[in-house]
C-alpha cells in the first residue's frame, strides 16, 4: 500500500508526532512518500511573518533549538530523505506540478499532517481517499481552534480522523479519541497530547483501511458549526478556564 503524507514548510516541519507516524508506517511495510507545499524560503519567511509578525525569527530559532520539537534528526523532510522516502517539494498544492507529482506517486491513501487546503483535483487522485486528523470532536466543532472552542463551551476535547471532502472538516469520520484535561494542563500541553493521539489514530486508520475493516460514519452537519481562529481575548478566557481546572465535563451533544 502506498501512502503519501502532505505537509508544508519542509525546512521547519519538525513536529515529533509526524516522524512517529511516518516511522510506524514504514515499520509496517507501508510504501511511504511525502509531498510538501510552501517549500521555498520566501514562502516560509512570509508564513512566519504572517503568523508571528516581527517576532518570527526569534520563535524560529527557539523552535529549532528545542529538542522536543526538533528531535535529534531535524525536519521530517530531512529524516525522510535519509530513510530513502521520496519527498516532493512544491510551492502550492494547487499548482499543476503538484498534481503531476501526486499522480506519479500514485497513492492508495493520502494523509494530511498539517497541510494547506487540498484542491479537489488532488483529492481525486488517491484510490482510497484522503484522511485528515482534526483537533476537535466532530460534527460539533468544525474549523479552527476546535480544542479552544470546546473548552470555552465546557465541551469534551479530542481528535477526529475523517475523510477529506471539499468542505471544511465535513467528511465521514473513521476514528475519534477524547482527550482528558488533566490538572495543570495548558493549551500547549493539550496540543502535544492531541498530536500524539492524531498519530495513533491515523496509524490505526491506515491499518484498518488496508485490512478492509474501516468503518466510516457520515456526519450530521446540522449538529455542528464552523469555528474560526480565536481572538486573543477569547483565547485568554480559555487559558484562564484551564488554569482554573476546566475539565470539559459537559457531554458532547452528538
Amino acid at each position, binding site marked *: 500500500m502506498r501512502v503519501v503524507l502532505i505537509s508544508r514548510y519542509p525546512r521547519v516541519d519538525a513536529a515529533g508526532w509526524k516522524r512517529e507516524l511516518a516511522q510506524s508506517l514504514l515499520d509496517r511495510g507501508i510504501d511511504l512518500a511525502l509531498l510538501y507545499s510552501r517549500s521555498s524560503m520566501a514562502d516560509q519567511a512570509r508564513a512566519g511573518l*504572517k503568523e508571528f509578525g516581527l517576532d518570527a525569527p526569534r520563535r524560529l530559532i527557539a523552535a529549532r533549538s528545542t529538542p522536543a520539537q526538533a528531535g535529534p534528526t531535524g525536519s521530517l523532510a530531512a529524516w525522510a530523505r535519509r530513510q530513502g522516502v521520496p519527498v516532493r517539494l512544491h510551492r502550492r498544492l494547487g499548482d499543476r506540478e503538484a498534481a503531476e507529482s501526486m499522480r506519479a506517486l500514485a497513492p492508495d491513501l493520502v494523509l494530511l499532517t498539517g497541510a494547506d487546503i487540498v484542491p479537489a483535483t488532488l483529492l481525486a487522485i488517491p484510490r482510497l481517499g484522503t484522511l485528515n486528523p482534526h483537533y476537535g470532536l466532530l460534527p460539533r466543532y468544525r474549523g479552527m481552534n476546535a480544542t479552544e472552542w470546546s473548552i*470555552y463551551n465546557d465541551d469534551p476535547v479530542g481528535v477526529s480522523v475523517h475523510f477529506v471532502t471539499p468542505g471544511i472538516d465535513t467528511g465521514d469520520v473513521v476514528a475519534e479519541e477524547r482527550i482528558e484535561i488533566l490538572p495543570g494542563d495548558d493549551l500547549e500541553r493539550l496540543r502535544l497530547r492531541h498530536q500524539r493521539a492524531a498519530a495513533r489514530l491515523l496509524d490505526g486508520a491506515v491499518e484498518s483501511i488496508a485490512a478492509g475493516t474501516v468503518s466510516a460514519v457520515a456526519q450530521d452537519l446540522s449538529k455542528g458549526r464552523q469555528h474560526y*481562529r480565536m481572538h*486573543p481575548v*477569547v483565547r485568554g478566557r480559555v487559558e484562564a478556564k484551564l488554569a482554573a481546572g476546566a475539565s470539559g465535563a459537559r457531554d458532547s451533544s452528538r
Partner: protein
Amino acid sequence: MRPSARALGLLPAVVLGDAARAPFRRLLPPRYGIAPGSLEAAVDWLCLSHEATGRRGSSKGFSLVFGWEAPYPETTGYVIGTLLAYASRSGAERYREHARSMGDWELAIQSEDGGIMGGQLRGAPKPSIDFNTGMVLHGWLDLHEALGDERYLDAARRAGHFLVRVQDRDGAWRGSHAYRGIPHAYNARVAWALLRLAERSGDDGSRSAALSNLDWVLARQHDNGWFESCEFKPGALPNTHALAYTLRGLLESHAIVGDAAMLEAALKTSEVLIRKLEVLETLPATFDRDWTPRASYICVTGLAQLGGVWLRLYELTGDARLLNAGLKAVDQAASFQSRRRFAPLDGPLPGSVPIWGRYAPLQYPNWATKFLADSLMLRERCLAAV
C-alpha cells in the same frame, strides 16, 4: 464649496501613510486590541464635529479637500445616541449637553410634514426623506429616554406619522421621499426606530408600519444571505455599510418584538460575512450577489458597524463565535482610526481604507466615527460580561 488649504496640506501625508502601510497589512498578522484612548478620541471628535458647525448639527465630516463639511441632519440624529451613551459611561455632562443641543437643532429643522430633509443643511431645505427621518427619530427617542423632555417625544411622534403616511402598501418606502426614489432594505433601521416609538408612545400605527416594512425586508433576502434592494443607488452593489444597517435593523427589531425570522435573517447574512472576514482577513467594501468580492478597498464604516452587529448578536444568542467575529471586526476598524496632532484628524475613522477608496473618498464621515464609538462601547460591555 471651496478647498481648505489646511486640509489639502495634510492630504499627501495621509495618502502616503496609507500607501506605505498597505503591504505591511498583507505581510504581518492582524493587530488585535484597542489603542488606549481610542473611544475617548472618537467621542471627542464627534463633539468637535458639532463645534465645527457653530453647534448646529454635527458636521457631515472632515474632508481632506474641503475641511469641515456642513451639518448633516440624518447622521446628527444617530450621533445623539452615541453621545448620550458615552455621557452615561463617563459621567461627563458635556457630552449630554452636545446631544441635547443637536436634538434641539433637529427640532428646529424638522419639516412641516414631520420628516427630516435629505442631505446636508446648505442653503434651502430639501424634501423629507424616509431614512433620514428614521435616524433622527432614534436620536429624539434617545433624548426623551435620557432627559424626559416631552418636546422630543412630540417631534418623534410627528416624524413617525410622516413615515406611516408616506409608506407604500407593501411596507416599502419609495418615490419622492425615498433616497434616489428606490426602496431600500436598509430601511429596516427605520422600522427599528418605529418600533421604539411604538414602545415609548403606544402608537399602534408605528408598530404596524414597522412590521410591514420588516416583512418586506425579509422577503428581499436570498437563500445565500444576500439582500435585494440594499444598494444606495440604482444599479450599484450594496456596500457593507448598507448591509450592516439592514442587519442591525433586523436584529434590534427582533429584540423588541421577538420575531425569530428577523434574528435568523441577521444570522444568515452574518455567517457569510464572518467567513469572508476570516478567509480574506478583512471585508472588501462590496460583494456581488454570489458574495464574490467586488472592491479592492475597505468600507471602514461598514466594518465598524458589522463588528457592532456581531457583538449585539452575541448578546442576543450567547454564541461566542459572534463575540469572536465582533472583536476582530471592531479591532480592525479601530486600527484604522486616525490619531494625529491636528484636532480634525485626532479620533475620526476614514470612510475607506485606503483613504482614496470609493466610499467617502478622502473623508472622515461623522457616522464612521459614531459607529466606531458605538462598537467600542459594545465591546467593553460584552467583555465585561464574559
